[in-house]
Structures are given as C-alpha cells and as structure tokens.
C-alpha cells in the first residue's frame, strides 16, 4: 500500500505545476493567469473553479455555499458539458449519495476528462472511498467527503483519504475548503463517516419511537429540542435530509457491519419509499 501512495505522490510531482502549465498553455493557447498561477506550489490555486455533479439537493447546497464565498461553480447537468470546461476546473465534486452505476459513470468521466492534477471529491457515505476508486486510475487524486443534506451550511466538513490518496491531494482539498471558510476534520475511510452516521441512528430511533406508538412525531421533535438541546427535531431533520437518504446510509452501515443495530425502522422504510406522500397523510 505504501508503494502505491508513494507512486501517487510521484505522479503529482512529475506533473508539477510547471509542466501542467506548459501543457495547458499549449492546449488552450492561454494565458497570463495560468502562468502566474503556475508559480505557486499547490495544485489548487486561489482562483478556484469547482464543478459539481450528482444529487440535485446536494449540488444546490454546495453551489450556494461556494458562491457565497466567491468561489466559481459549474453545476454540471450532464457529462457532455464537462469537456468544454475541463481545462479550467480546479476541483470536481461527485455528490451522488448512493453508490451505483450513475456514480461510477460520473467518477470515471471526471477521472478521464479532467487533468490529473485536479482533485476529485466524492461523497463516501454509502461506500468507502477505497471501494469506490478501487478499479479507477489515478486513485491518488480522490478524497471522500461526508456530503449529507443540511450539513454543508455548518462550520465543518468531514473528509477522508483512502489508502491511495496522496498528501498533496488532501492538502489541496483542505485548502479549497479553507478558502470557502470551512474547517475540516479528516477521519478514517468508513461508511457513514461521523456526523451522518450518528444523525441517521438518531432519526431511525425517533421513527421506531413513532412506530411503537410511544409519542407523536411532533412531541418527539419538541422533546429532543427542549429536553436535550438538539438543534432540530430528529423527524423534521430527517424530512429535510430526505428519508430515502437516511435509509440509504443505514442500509450501507447494516451491510457493512452485519449488525442488527443498523436495521431500518419499517416506518422509515415506508417514508423513504412514499416520499412527500407521507407528509400529506400525517
């Protein structure tokens, strides 16, 4: 494994800013700006251009927070539009919460289209970064993120490197978030990471509590806010996140740990399927 991390570093070195600039100057015939940028050590420069791909809700959240801090954003509607802007992009986000064919396709397209120096940040809540990138080239350029609805408006971002991620990549991603006025916490590459995992378990328990007819959803939310100072009632919070997202993280934890404690409450499962219809009924 160490070897691979090293080779990752070596790759980044071999494509040091200088050579990257030469290349891009040749390819695009630009520009003063790029030359200027190339003099700095880090692959991500102060002029960020971020591209976002994946779940609509997350793309919107990330887009608005980045733009608030003066970071330019391209919301990619499809993969075709990626090619036209690929040369200018300094960081790419794949924000599909649930792993599957679409996410794999997106990661592959980003990986093959974007210059190798550009870090790719992918949501790693239902599948570890190691597993997501196992069959990809340039694994050193990927960083995982706890991209979970409602959390990006807060102060802190949870990141994870895989065994293949290079230090340069991680540092440049941390620098990007620093530019967006976010603190970062780097945790081990694990399903659910920290905050989403705890939050999903609380929401799941609150729905078991409804299902067992212990109290009404409204009383449960009020109780958690006023009895133990939670920032939101867990059921209202689950609704904001999307119950299908909560169920997806719990299912992934269940499959990963094979432990009964991550069993999705049958009521949560129904709400995940019924979506907005549940709200009309209750």
């Amino acid at each position: 494994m160490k070897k691979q991390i090293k080779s990752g570093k070596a790759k980044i070195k071999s494509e040091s800013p200088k050579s990257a600039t030469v290349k891009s100057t040749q390819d695009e015939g630009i520009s003063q700006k790029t030359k200027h940028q190339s003099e700095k050590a880090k692959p991500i420069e102060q002029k960020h251009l971020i591209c976002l791909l994946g779940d609509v809700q997350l793309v919107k959240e990330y887009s608005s927070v980045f733009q608030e801090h003066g970071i330019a954003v391209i919301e990619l509607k499809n993969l075709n539009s990626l090619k036209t802007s690929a040369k200018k992009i300094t960081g790419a986000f794949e924000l599909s919460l649930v792993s599957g064919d679409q996410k794999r396709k997106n990661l592959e397209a980003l990986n093959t289209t974007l210059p190798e120096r550009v870090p790719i940040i992918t949501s790693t809540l239902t599948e570890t970064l190691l597993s997501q990138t196992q069959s990809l080239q340039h694994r050193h350029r990927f960083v995982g993120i706890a991209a979970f609805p409602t959390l990006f408006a807060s102060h802190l971002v949870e990141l994870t490197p895989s065994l293949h991620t290079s230090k340069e990549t991680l540092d440049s991603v941390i620098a990007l978030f620093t530019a967006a006025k976010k603190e970062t916490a780097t945790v081990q590459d694990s399903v659910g990471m920290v905050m989403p995992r705890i939050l999903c378990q609380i929401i799941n328990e609150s729905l078991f509590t409804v299902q067992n007819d212990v109290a009404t959803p409204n009383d449960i939310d009020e109780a958690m806010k006023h009895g133990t100072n939670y920032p939101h009632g867990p059921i209202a919070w689950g609704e904001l996140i999307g119950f299908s997202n909560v169920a997806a993280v719990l299912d992934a934890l269940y499959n990963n740990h094979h432990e009964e404690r991550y069993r999705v409450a049958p009521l949560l499962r129904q709400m995940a399927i019924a979506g907005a219809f549940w709200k009309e009924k209750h």
Partner: protein
Amino acid sequence: MAISIGIVGAGTMGAGIAHIAALNKFNVSLYDINEEVIRRSAERINFEMKRAVDKNKITDDDMKQALSRIKKRTNINDLDTCDLIIEAVLEDIKVKKDLFKKLDQIAHHTAILATNTSSLSVTSIAAATKKPERVVGMHFFNPVYMMKLVEIVKGARTSDETMKSATAIAEQMGKKTVQAKDTPGFIVNRVARPFYGEAMKILGENVTSLEEIDRIVKRSGGFKMGPFELMDLIGNDVNLSVTESVYEQLYHDPRFQPSPIQKQLVEAGMLGKKTKQGFYNYDDK
C-alpha cells in the same frame, strides 16, 4: 386556592422542582427523611434564586414570596393535604414501590401521585398503589430551572384525567410538555441513546479520536455539546445505568447495547467531571 405540591426527596431534582413550583405560585411541601439534605437543598434554592435576581430574571420580591411558599417537611404524613405529590428519590424500583404504597395511604383520595423516574416503569410503580389511575410520570430534566421540558408519562392504567391534570400543572410551572407512553426511556432517554452509543461505536472502530468526534458533532451537526463531553457532564455511571436499564427492559435489543468503553471508565472510577476524570481530564480546569 393555590394548588399545593408535595415533593418527596430533596436531592438535585427535588430541589429543582420545588424551586420552579414555588416561583410559579404553587405552595410547596419539600419532604426528605434527612433534615440535613433539606437544609442543603433550601440553601441551593436560595443560591439559584439569588442568581436569577442578579441576572434580572426575577425580582427580589418574587424571590421572597417564592421562598415563603416552600415548607420544609421531615414528616411524610404532612403531605396529606397536597393536590399533587411528586416523587424524586433514588432510581430504585423497590424503594419507589414502597414509597408509593405509603403515599397511597397518606395522600388525599383525589391527589395525583407522580414519579420523576427517568428509566423505571411508571406502570410498575403505580401497581404498588390501590389507585393506579391516579399515578403518572412527570419527568423533569436537570437542571430543572433551565430545561424547559417535562415528559408526562402515561402508565398502562393512568387515566386521561390524570394526564390532563399533570400536564396543566407542569405548564403552569412554565414548562413545555410532551406526552409519552410508559416505555423504556420514554422519548428523550430513548431517542438520545444513539447519540452516545453510536459515538462510542465510532470511537471503538478508531474512525477518529473522541475530541474530533465532539468537534464534528458541534461544528458540523450544530449540537451544543459533543457526546463525550456530555457523557462526562451527566456522569458516565448515570449515563451507563440509563442505557443498561433501557437495554434490559427491551430484552437486549441490540440497538441499545451498552458500550464496553463506557463500562471500563465506570469500573475505573472515571465518572466524568465530578471525579475530574472521564473521557477527558479535568484536573487543570
């Protein structure tokens, strides 16, 4: 005529309930078997009210009147005229059942008997009396004068009327009420279990350090305290015993499995802030 409330047990919770009841114009009889405990409890109420006066939350006059409404009692028979008696003694089912049997004999036949238990069965406590329909759970949170919530807990035989009366009185004490059926942990102590349990599971898997988990929960989740500092504040012994109680009562449902990490802290006497050592070290603070 003002409603009179008897409080049995003048520990932290009993004193807190007496404090807010008296401030909200209830006549309070604060009973404890131990005179010294009552004396210290009265001192604490005095101290807290003075602080509230200093912060301009209540007037000096409010304080004087409130204090004059609290009667210190060391004879349990003096609670015979109370409209509501709230029990706040230690969390031991036998102690509580014996007490309720006695209160059932002493109390006026229309009085409501409430237990402030956080983890025992209200139904089981009520079964020690001849009028289980008049027994209800009134679960206050510590510190009582700060935490807004009271869980009104319906035992298997608690009447709707008793629920209504207990709810109305708690609201007159300035509290927000929610209604819960008598099930292990009621609402808060049940839904909050994963906040602690999952955090310890994540720590046990070495995903990151406990300091980092606390930071993430506060700065990413927006919680006021992280799980580890909160467990240290509550006391690891208290927190573990609530978890164990819920776990036992639900016949070992794996969602509530206690953590060996916390068990070891308790065995080591590292109970948290109160012993200056828990998940964190508080020696210098």
